């Protein structure tokens, strides 16, 4: 969805010049009802929002990937038992209870979708972006993965096998992208900077390093 259809991350009523949207009112009303009935605690709601807005996100997954790139034993553990290997870095829990990591190579490209809803590995990637949850991606990722990848500007060599992982159960998939060439001297932290959210869903490559200043 183009950015101009949104309001820049603020509710209309935050500006004080538009009436609050229907959804703003409906959710406020629902929240006050559930608080009044003793079913939810507003401070817990704040803590949940704070978690997914600031604490859990794709930087977690980038750390996992960078570790796998520099540490062969870690990579072996990650491909063998991803849930345990990811837990070594302190990540796990809701929507990442059962993890599998799939590795991109010169011959195989993996991408992840949930055709039935929006299943996504929250502990390592945070909440999914709008496009991942949208009808175009969910419908076409399994029948036209090349066309979908082209819409992300990604073109694969002809002999590359595309594997699409449709998250139909409670197993969550994370793509281990290929380490970009020219990064031999990079530290783990520098490597993590090259790992985007999209590269761990499988709709992008990890970024090539920026050229060094002359």
């Amino acid at each position, binding site marked *: 969805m183009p*950015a101009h259809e949104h309001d820049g*991350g603020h509710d209309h009523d935050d500006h004080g010049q538009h009436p609050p949207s229907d959804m703003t009112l409906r959710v406020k009303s629902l929240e006050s009802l559930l608080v009044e009935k*003793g079913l939810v605690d507003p401070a817990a*709601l704040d803590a949940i929002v704070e978690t997914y807005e600031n604490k859990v996100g794709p930087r977690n997954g980038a750390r996992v990937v960078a570790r796998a790139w520099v540490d062969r034993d870690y990579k072996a553990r990650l491909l063998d038992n991803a849930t345990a290997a990811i837990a070594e870095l302190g990540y*796990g829990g809701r929507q990442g209870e059962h993890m599998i990591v799939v590795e991109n190579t010169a011959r195989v490209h993996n991408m992840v979708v949930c*055709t039935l809803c929006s299943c996504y590995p929250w502990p390592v990637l945070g909440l999914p972006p709008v496009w991942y949850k949208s009808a175009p991606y969910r*419908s076409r990722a399994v029948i*036209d993965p090349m066309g979908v990848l082209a819409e992300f500007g990604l073109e694969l060599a002809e002999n590359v096998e595309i594997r699409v992982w449709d998250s*139909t159960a409670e197993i969550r998939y994370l793509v281990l992208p290929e380490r970009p060439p020219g990064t031999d001297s990079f530290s783990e932290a520098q490597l993590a900077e090259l790992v985007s959210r*999209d590269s761990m869903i499988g709709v992008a490559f990890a970024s090539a390093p920026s050229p060094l200043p002359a």
Partner: protein
Amino acid sequence: MNGVHDMGGMHGLGSVAPEANEPVFHMRWEARALALTLAAGACGRWNIDKSRFARERIPGPDYLRMSYYEKWIAGLETLLTETGLVSREELAAGRSASRVADVSPPLIADRVAATLAQGGPTERKVTVEPRLSVGERIRARNLNPTEHTRLPRYVRGKCGTITRRHGAHVFPDANAHGRGEQPQHLYQVRFEGRELWGEQAIGPGAVYLDLWEDYLEPG
């Protein structure tokens, strides 16, 4: 159920439009919708499968029109009213008309981190052995339940190969309908692109799904 949520393989739903530098939430009400759904879920009156089925029952035209968190709110309202935690009248008024009986204390802020870290693992120990093995050819059964299922239409009747066994997991088709967890063996299955989409399948490739034993028969 054969609803519009089961989208795999459809054409005509538009092109993918990634948004650069997308915020986690576009509006504050979306953040509250997520938090309300998680916090209300912690009351323990429903499970993730019931929750998914509540969203799948949104009428098709509305499902396609609504934004993501609008569907979450619609689903939450359905769950709250169906479990009797809230009445339709209370929802409309936004005011409580009665106390809820037997309600446990709500999820408190101090317990949020631990609750999220614990999550909801679905693997269960069972005594029954898995019937299928890695490398075995299977066919996804042609099932068309009107209830909740995680067997997408696009693989029904198609042949694939078992690539991994995941152990036994809670069976959504039962758990979404109050029939208990009924855990059964779950398998990763590889379906070749040509098997799913015919000779015109574009390029080499395959789709992998995680499917429960009841969804599968020998291929």
